[in-house]
Structures are given as C-alpha cells and as structure tokens.
C-alpha cells in the first residue's frame, strides 16, 4: 500500500490530538507514516505515541536548522522527504498536515515545490482522497479532490475520532539540507503563551464563549467552561475591547471551531462570528436581547442576563454531577 505522510503536531515532545486524528484519516488512504520535525531528543517519545495510532514509520527530521525561521525551511524539509520516499520507488498517496496558520503556508509552498494540488481546511477526507470543506461562513459544503501530483491536504481539528491501532513505529532519521534562501525570515524572539489549563480552543469538544454582553467580566463564562471541561472563546467585540487576547477569538479572522457543543454568551451572532462556529454540532446561547441573530441558529436559547443565568447554570451542573 502506498504511504501517507502525516506531519506531527507536538509541543515540547507532547503529541497533540489532531495528529492522532490525521493518522486515523491516513489509514483510509494508505499506510500512515508520521513525520516529526523537532528536537532529536524528543523523537523516541513521539514515536511511542504515534505508533499507538497506526504509524508504521516515523520519519524524524532534526529541527536545529528549521525552528529559527518561518515556514520556508519546513516546506523544504518536507519536499526533500517526499522526494526521498517517492525516489525510493515507493508510492506516496498523500501528505496530511494539521490545519494551522503556519502549516497552511508550509503546504502552499510545498504544493509549488512538488507541483501538487493543495486543499486546505478539510473537515473530512475519504479513502479516495475526496475532501469535504466548509465554506462561505459555513453556509456551503464543498467536495473536492486533488488532480495533480501528491495530494497535499491540511485538515482541521475534530475532523475524525482518533482510533487506536498498533503500528510498527519504525524510526528513520532523515537528513535534509536547508538552503540559505529559506533562512531569510528569522524568528528573533518567542514568547510562549501562558498555559490556561483548559483544552485548546480548536480541539475542544465544548467551547464556551463570551462577547460584548460580558461587559469585560469573563468570570461567569470561565466558571461555566471549567465545570463543563470546555475551552473559552471570545467574539471579536470582546477581543477588540481588549478583554481577551486575539488567540481566543472565534470567527472569520480568528479560529474556526466545530465542537460538539458551543455556548455563546452575550454574543449577538454577526456573520463574522457565525463563520467561526456555525458548524458546531449543538449550539446554545444566552443573550439579553431576544432579537439577537444568534437565536436564529441555536438549538436552545435563553433570553436573559448571562451574569445571572451562567452562575445559576454552573451551580446546577455542579449539583447534578454530584
């Protein structure tokens, strides 16, 4: 069976859930091989983790020459790996990357290098390579397929339920040479984001968001999120007001989320916000304004003040959980 490369998403050696989702999808297309671009010392741990989700091979590319620069070196490394794999007479069925801002750019450059078609932000990939995307603020569903070269597909988090299956996890270290031309956008400083202790916004099964209606006080939103084990999100209005950093923003210019449950609090539901959450499985909202457009798309809505409804709901949930 032909190989499918899956770029591993890991932080400090800890593999993130979207990697397992992609490995699960990769099994539909061929034989999954994980690609870890990172510190050599973390490779063993990563290999142990990904083989539980079916990685037959784990290609390890040391990131010493890669991590200090934006995008271009990663694209070069992946292109060289792809050429090595197909040069060894093996068929390469696809290259899957978790859909992050940087990975989409990596995929874009890779597509040109490999003269291969690119599909971004897929929410599903079938065995024949047909992808599903959600477009126009979630109002349309598009099915597409790459017709040239090795399909390069970036896949959004929560696109598949990770399935465990033992793979060989055979580690192979890949030497790549990064050109000077790729090392021209230098990362001169990095400030890691403070850990919130909550799930990642795009990966969470439940997202509890707050908007203008919070008046800047997210206490009730966060308390509800914590009792539900949810991530916290914010509308653009809340971010523009400086109440939450941009990394919390759900919407067209922020994150697109597709959780099992989305709870919108004090959010009116402008098209830009809907673009980021409309494909959530279940949507509920709490808003003082019964005319708020958010109520047009909810499965359940409460017209009321979030500052009284949310604490009461949090208490009720805590009580029911016993």
């Amino acid at each position, binding site marked *: 069976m032909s190989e499918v490369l899956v770029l591993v998403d890991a932080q400090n050696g800890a593999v993130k859930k979207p990697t397992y989702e992609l490995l699960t999808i990769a099994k539909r297309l061929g034989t999954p091989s994980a690609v870890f671009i990172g510190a050599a010392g973390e490779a063993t741990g990563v290999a142990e983790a990904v083989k539980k989700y079916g990685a037959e091979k784990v290609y390890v590319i040391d990131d010493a020459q890669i991590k200090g620069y*934006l995008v*271009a070196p990663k694209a070069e490394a992946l292109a060289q790996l792809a050429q090595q794999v197909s040069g060894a007479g093996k068929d390469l069925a696809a290259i899957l990357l978790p859909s*992050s*801002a940087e990975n989409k*750019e990596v995929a*874009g*450059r890779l*597509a*040109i290098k490999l003269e*291969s*078609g*690119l*599909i*971004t932000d897929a929410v599903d990939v079938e065995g024949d390579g*047909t992808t599903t995307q959600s477009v126009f603020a979630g*109002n*349309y569903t*598009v*099915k*597409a*397929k*790459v017709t040239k*070269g090795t399909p390069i597909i970036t896949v959004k988090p929560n696109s598949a339920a990770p399935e465990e299956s033992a793979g060989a996890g055979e580690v192979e270290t890949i030497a790549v040479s990064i050109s000077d*031309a790729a090392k*021209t*956008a230098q*990362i*001169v400083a*990095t*400030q890691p*984001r403070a850990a919130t202790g909550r799930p990642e916004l795009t990966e969470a099964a439940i997202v509890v968001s707050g908007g203008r209606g919070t008046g800047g006080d997210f206490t009730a939103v966060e308390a509800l999120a914590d009792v539900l084990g949810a991530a916290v999100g914010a509308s653009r209005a809340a971010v523009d007001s400086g109440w939450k950093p*941009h*990394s919390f923003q759900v919407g*067209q*210019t922020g994150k697109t989320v597709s959780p099992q*449950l989305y709870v919108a609090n004090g959010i009116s539901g402008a*098209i*830009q916000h809907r*673009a980021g959450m*409309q494909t959530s499985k279940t*949507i*509920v909202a*709490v808003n003082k304004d*019964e005319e708020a457009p958010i109520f*047009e*798309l*909810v*499965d*359940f*809505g*409460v*017209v009321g003040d979030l500052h009284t*409804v949310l604490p*009461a*709901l949090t*208490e*009720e*949930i805590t009580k*029911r*959980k016993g």
Partner: protein
Amino acid sequence: MNIVVLVKYVPDATADRRFEADNTVDRVDVDGLLSELDEYAVEQALQIKEKRAEEEIEVTALTVGPEKAADAVRKALQMGADKGVHVIDDAIAGSDAIATSLVLAKAIEKLGAEKPVDLVVGGLASTDAGLSVVPAMLAERLGLPQVTLASVVETQGNQVRIKRDTDVATEVVGGTMPLVLSVTDQSGEARYPSFKGIMAAKKKPLETWSLADLGVDASQVGLAASWSVVEETAARPPRTAGEIVKDEDGSGAKALADFLASKKFI
C-alpha cells in the same frame, strides 16, 4: 521604495454568496467589493509610506480578476495608493491559488522590471476562498523571504520586523527587503477613503494587463489548469431556531441544564 499591495475583489460576505454551475465562485452576479482583510494590507502599506515621508515611496495596488475587480483597485487608490494594476483575462477565470500566485508573481516581476519591488503586502486571507496561502506561494515563486501574518509591522531601512501570534506563542520575526509581508486584522484599523481621496483616485493611473503582457500561457491558468477539482458544492441546510426560553427567577438556567442533560453534555 516600491511597495505592491495585493487586493482581491470578493463577493460581499453579507450578500447571498453562491457557486456557478461549474462549481467556481460566482464573482459576477453577486455584489462584490475589496476584501475587507486586504484593506489592512493597504493601510499598512500607506502607513509605511507616511512614516517614511522623507523617502520617495510608491504604492501600487495589484489585482487579478474579472472586470468588476477594478473596483478593488479603485478602493485602494481612494485610500491612498498611487497607482493600480489590474490583470484581466478570460483565461484566468476559475484559477486556483496556485495559478493565481503564478499570475501575481509574473505581474510583480513585470513591475519590478520597471523599478525594483521592495515589499509585497497581502492580507490575512481572502474573505471568499480563504486559503490564506497566496503570500507564502508568492514568496516561494519569487524566491523572497516571507514575513507573514503580522499584527504589528515596523520597518527601518531595508529591515522589516513584525509581531506575529501563533497558536502557542507570540513571535518577533525579522527579514530584509525585498520580501513578502502579510498582515492580519490586528495590525490596525483601515482608513476610510476621504472625499479628497475619492476625487484624487480618479486621476491616478490604473493599468490593465493581459496574460500575454505577462508572458503567461493561457494553458497555465484557469479552471482546466487547476491542480484540484471541486466535484460538488451544496448549500448547507440552514440551522433552524430551536427552543428559546425567557429567564424568569432562575428558570432559564434550569431549562438550559435540562437541555444539556438531554444531549448528554452533563
């Protein structure tokens, strides 16, 4: 210094956006405008020009698209760009990002042949297809550094320094011009064209180029040359409003808890 800003004409997000029979975006019958996210790119280009007033800086707005796409360039001219270039050719219709980046790269090379291009500025994404890949593809094609998704932009001499927010960190990234820069909606509110700007724009040069002007063969672009194919587009069934209750004396919280329990969230 020579700055090129990439502007895209997109269907209005608040209009009824749809696809044509061949599954390409309907760009003709739906009201369009300059992509909101490209306004931020125009704004940053203009701010660089204004901050470096002692230098001679020209800002060129570049678009690829059908006839109406000239509107996107005009808006950029009204905001303050100095000149416009509109690449228009029937063969381009249906081009994917890969082909579009080729046309843009050739247009930038043509501009550069007249006067070297120091900075190419794009937005975070288009508001229609939204791939967010064209600046990276352009950097790849032009062999230029890419300094992308900036929330803060600073330039000094030929140095560009940006702040960029990723999922896990805030980074400071630096590069040397010429380079490709892209900016997010966090980079600063885009200005509205003034009455004076609108009047002045009418006298600014707006050139129209065809594929032949760029030395691009029609077979390299368009729907047929696309490296991927859209097989099907379907309108998502609109979400229908569910039960809405009014909160009275804490009844709302209880009703919501009942609903969440019925869906097994608690």
